[in-house]
């Protein structure tokens, strides 16, 4: 009979594998930029390794002194920092694209007026 920790580990690895393949599918279908994909895959790989090797990671050795609640808090903070970093990376790209869209929109409006003024004259 499988132990509870092994079952949980298998479920977590399964979820991460699904996430990994979903990320690859998004990239292959052209919905996700390759630049962003690389970072997400690295993050997913790190999470996969952490779950795979959790019994040997020093962080989990603190459970005896930290207790369950404190460990959960540490994990939540690490998880949040990782997600925040990835989100900020995406937001930088969105901001850049927003700026580029603004420039293009303005240039298009100015060029249209230039063409139409030529037609009027």
């Amino acid at each position: 009979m499988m132990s509870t920790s092994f079952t949980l580990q298998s479920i977590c690895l399964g979820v991460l594998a699904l996430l990994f393949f979903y990320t690859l599918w998004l990239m292959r279908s052209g919905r996700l930029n390759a630049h962003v994909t690389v970072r997400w895959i690295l993050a997913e790989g790190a999470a996969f390794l952490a779950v795979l090797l959790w019994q040997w990671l020093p962080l989990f050795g603190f459970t005896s002194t930290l207790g369950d609640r404190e460990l959960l808090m540490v994990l939540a903070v690490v998880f949040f920092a990782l997600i925040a970093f990835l989100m900020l990376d995406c937001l930088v790209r969105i901001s850049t694209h927003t700026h580029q869209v603004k420039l293009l929109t303005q240039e298009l409006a100015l060029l249209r007026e230039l063409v139409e003024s030529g037609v009027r004259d």
Partner: protein
Amino acid sequence: MSNEILKVLIVIPSHNEEESLPSLLDEVKRTGCDAVVVNDASSDATEQVARAAGVPVLSLPVNLGIGGGVQTGFLYALRNGYDIVVQVDGDGQHDPSQFQTIIAPIVTGEADCVIGSRYLPKAPDSSYSTPFARRMGMYFSTGILYLATGLRVHDTTSGFRALNRAAFSFFATEYPVDHPEAEALLMLHQAGFRVIERPVRMRCRSGGQSLFTFVRAMLYPLRVIVGFMGLLYKTPRRTRA
């Protein structure tokens, strides 16, 4: 400098202003100045109304907000050799007959940017009724602008402004986006431009809908703080080629 030899452009940013534009454009034409309407992706007949009045239209295919719209007008003025830009809201609140009041200090070289103000203590526009939320937002931005720069501007949210070529050229390269009025003043101050106010009278909206909704008014203080922090602590960034 004489006003007659200076090319003045009236920039009218408009979003769904088909009701108020015809009368405004009639008044603008009577001033003898050139005008351009910046149609910020309106869903109504704003563009057609402006074209029917014989005014050039810069039609933005996607909505950029007031900041992006006004900046498009500055770019147009820069590329067409204008000396002064007067910014007028498309909702008809700004009376074109008062253009000379805000252009005069630019012509004499007294200022680089002149704000048409409703709230100057010496000459307040007592006939103008400011909604409570907007008034609170304005007090806030006035206070924070004073704290940040020492610049005392009584009507920070006024969109009735005149700028000389140096000032609008500066804004053609970079201009804040949502509710840009207060941030624009901070940018001008940081860059060493002279900003003054002149008393004007404003009218109530003749149509359309204000962008300054209750929710936006509630978020306005936070938006101003973040915008000011961004400007005060920013590093030099890209500029338009």
